[in-house]
Structures are given as C-alpha cells and as structure tokens.
C-alpha cells in the first residue's frame, strides 16, 4: 500500500490500519492481557450506556404524559365547577401515576449510582413533570409549592420498607417553574376568550412575581436559566399587553371580541408565537 504513496495522496485523509496492526487484530486471542482488560472495559461502558438509554426512555414517557396532563388542565373552563373537579381528579391521579411508576423506575435504576452522571437523561422529563405539577396546583389552589414539598413526589419505599429517593436537582425545579409560566400565559389568553378578565390580571401578576424573582438570581453559569428567562420575559410582555388592552379597550369592545383585538395587535409585533 505504501508503494503508491505519492500518487494516492487522498489516502492520507482516510488511513487504513496498517498491516502490522491488522495482523495483530487477527492474532490477538481471548486470553491476551489486553483483550481481557478491554473486554471488561467494554462491559462497563455498555452497562453505563444501557442504563442511560433506559432512563432516557423513561424520561421521554414522562414528558409525553406530562404534556397530556397539561393539555387536560387547559381544557378546564372555570365556569363549570363540576367539570373542573373531575378534570382535577383525573390530573392528580395521572400525576401520581407518573411519580409512582415512571419516576420510581428511574429511582430504582439509580440506586447506588451517582445520580448526577445520569441527570442529563431525565432532566427533561423532570422539568416537564414539575411544569404539569405546578399547573395542577395552581389551577386547584391558586398557588405553587416549594422544592421541599415537591421533593416528596420522588421519595419511595421498597419492599423492605427502606427509603430511597430520586435525585431532584433544584435547577430542574426552577426550570420547570420557568416553563410553567408559559402555560400561565396560555391560560391567560384562554381565560380572556371566556371573558373572565379578573383572572387575566391575576395570572399576569403571578407571572410578574416569578419574573421578578428570576431577576434576583445570582449568575449561575447555567445556560438553561438565561434561555428560559428570555422566554419568560416574552410571555410576560404578551400578558402585560393583554392586560393593557383589557384596560384601555375593555369598555369599547365586547369581551369575547377582545381576543381578536389583541391578536391583531400582536401581529404587528409578533415574534412567531401563535396561539
């Protein structure tokens, strides 16, 4: 192969393993020290990777189910108490189901492991779940709870009654809350269509509190936080615009028409978000 070295320059870009290495590949048997060593490495790497993949799968299911629960919670029309209660009941049981099955499986996978090694595999599902959980509590009680309280959703007991828990990183909690404000924005606009303007102001204020709190955070070096804060700011501006329109046009336009007014207003300054 080296005879044509000069003529076949492109070969340099994609070298083949040379003759000697090839011979060695063929002659190395299973008992060779190197073979043994690397086989055990391979097993260790595979094990890690497989566990990671299993968790990613579990996390993906959590994300999907959480999104569905969020959708369900949006279907609530505040007028009908009875319907509201039944939806809330369903949401609660589905949230608990995620906690008791999907998250429990992840926690079981991670027993005796360094959770941070696999954190990236389930952070998305975790954030989505927190988002759904916050929306549920907010819809039900008008408030969200602290990290300590939500931590309970990730604490389990096994058959021998010994406790174990899933790593619940505070960043995931805060990022979940940031996502949750997006849902509040959606809720605010939905409320508007039903003509309930008081709730719009309340929702807007609540998101404003959260935004203010985010402003107070020290720099964390966590890129996700700044990225989500940007989205949060946009949602908040949108809500503030809604409130502004209600205030200024509320008396001129019938309430169910307000949405059209705001939408046409938005088209001028929109950033691609569609309702």
């Amino acid at each position, binding site marked *: 192969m*080296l005879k044509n070295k000069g003529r076949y320059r492109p070969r340099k870009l994609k*070298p*083949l*393993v*040379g*003759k*000697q*290495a090839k011979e*060695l*590949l063929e002659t*190395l048997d299973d008992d060779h020290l*190197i*073979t043994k*060593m*690397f*086989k055990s*490495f*391979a097993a*260790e*790497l*595979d094990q890690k*990777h497989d566990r990671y993949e299993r968790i990613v799968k579990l996390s993906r299911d959590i994300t999907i189910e959480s999104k569905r629960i969020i959708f369900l919670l949006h279907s609530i029309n505040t007028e009908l108490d009875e319907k509201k209660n039944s939806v809330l009941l369903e949401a609660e049981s589905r949230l608990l189901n995620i906690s008791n099955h999907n998250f429990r499986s992840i926690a079981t996978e991670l027993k005796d*492991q*360094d*959770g*941070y*090694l696999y*954190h990236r595999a389930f952070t998305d599902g975790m954030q989505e779940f927190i988002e759904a959980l916050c929306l549920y509590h907010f819809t039900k009680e*008008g*408030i*969200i*709870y*602290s*990290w*300590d309280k939500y931590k309970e959703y990730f604490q389990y007991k096994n058959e021998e009654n010994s406790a174990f828990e899933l790593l619940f990183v*505070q960043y995931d*909690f*805060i990022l979940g*809350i940031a996502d949750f404000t997006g849902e509040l924005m959606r809720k605010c606009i939905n409320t508007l269509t039903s003509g309930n303007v008081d709730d719009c102001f309340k929702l807007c*204020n*609540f998101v404003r*509190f*959260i935004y203010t*709190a*985010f402003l*107070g*955070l*020290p720099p*964390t070096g966590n890129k996700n936080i700044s990225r989500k804060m940007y989205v949060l700011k946009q949602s908040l501006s949108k809500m503030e615009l809604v409130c502004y329109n209600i205030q200024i046009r509320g008396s001129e336009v019938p309430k169910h028409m307000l949405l059209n007014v705001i939408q046409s207003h938005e088209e001028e300054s929109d950033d691609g978000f569609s309702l």
Partner: protein
Amino acid sequence: MSEPQKIVITDIFSPFQEYINAEQEVREVIKNIIKDVEKSLREMLITLQVIHSEINCELIHNAILKTREQFEEIRKGFDALDKVVPPSQYYRYNDHWRFATQKLCFVAALIVFLEKGVLIDQITAAEILGLHQKENVHLNLEDYLMGLLILATELARFAVNAVTLGDYNRPLQISKFVAELNAGFRLLNLKNDSLRKRFDALKYDVKKIEEVVYDLSIRGLISTNQNAEQATGVTKNE
C-alpha cells in the same frame, strides 16, 4: 407583599438562591485545588519533553524520577478534592477536573511505558494519581481511556523523534505497543461521545508509527525480524 408573591419569594426562590450560593462556594474551592493540580501537571509535561530531544538514558531516567516526585503534589491535590466533593456528587462537579485527570492519566501511562514498556492498568493509574480507594473521588474509566489515547498520540511523535536521535529500536517497541492498544480499543462499543471522537484519531497515530517503521525497514535499518524482536526485547528489559 401579597400572599402569592411571598410564597414565590420566600418558599421558592430564596432556598434556590441559597442552593446556588452553596454550590458556588464548593466550586470555588474545587477550582483553587485544580488550579494547583494543573500547575504541577504543566511542570510534568515540560519535564517529560526531554524524551523528544535526548537519547541519554540517564537524562530520561532523571526526568521520570522528577515526574514521579511531582506526582506527590497531585496526590495532595486529589486528597484535598476528596474532602471537598460531597458523597456521590462526583459527577456534579466532574467538569472541573476531568480534563486535568485525563492529562495526568496520560503522564502516568507515559512514565510506566518508559519504565517498563507496558500498558498501565486502571488501578495503577489511579494509585499514581492518588485517586485509588478514595471516598468521594475516583478515576473514572472514560478519563483513563482518554489518557491512553493521548499517550498514543505522544508516542507517535516519540517514534519520529527517536529515529531523528538515532534510536531505531524505539519505533518498533512503540509500534507493537500502540497496535495492541488499537486492538484493545476496537473491542469497545463506543457511542457518539468525546471518547469516540478521540478514538477516531487513534488510527492516524497507528499509521504514522507504521510509516516510521516502514521507512526504517526499507532502508535496512532493521536488518531482520529476529533482530527487531531482540531489539524490542532489550528496550523492554531496561
């Protein structure tokens, strides 16, 4: 302050701020430890550069001895790190020392290669680095493997320079060694991660070394295979 605002601030964001602050403090301490470790690491890398320009056994021997002494500082650093990293949070802060650990692993692997001509195993590497049987820190497999890949690149360079210095046996030893390493790495199912990318560069090192061996052989600088084996044998026993 209204009720919801109070909850948002005191129940949710204040604890989070405390959490961030506590984390930053730990990171600061770690950064300072690693800064010293990296300083020693740079000194070691400089010390070992002598292999590329000197053929004198004694000089190389001294460089190895000096590097071994410098590892004392590294072990002190990792001792301190072990006390700072909270239990089972190795991977939370791992980014701070991953790169240094890989390089250190390479240095350890290089001196073991120079001394004995063999591939360092993971436990020996951990022992040299002072990461063996520690409570909260360890030498993880990926860093160790990464160190070996760095070693292959350095050895490719070493093979070239050894020839320049008139040492025609070294490339043969290196060639055999790296070919074995390559065979080993081929047994791993690497995923699309940094280790995989680094491994993809290994074939260039293998090729470079083989070209050196080829150049030597066509010029008759390695007379017969038998001689070559003897030669590598001799270097090994040194």
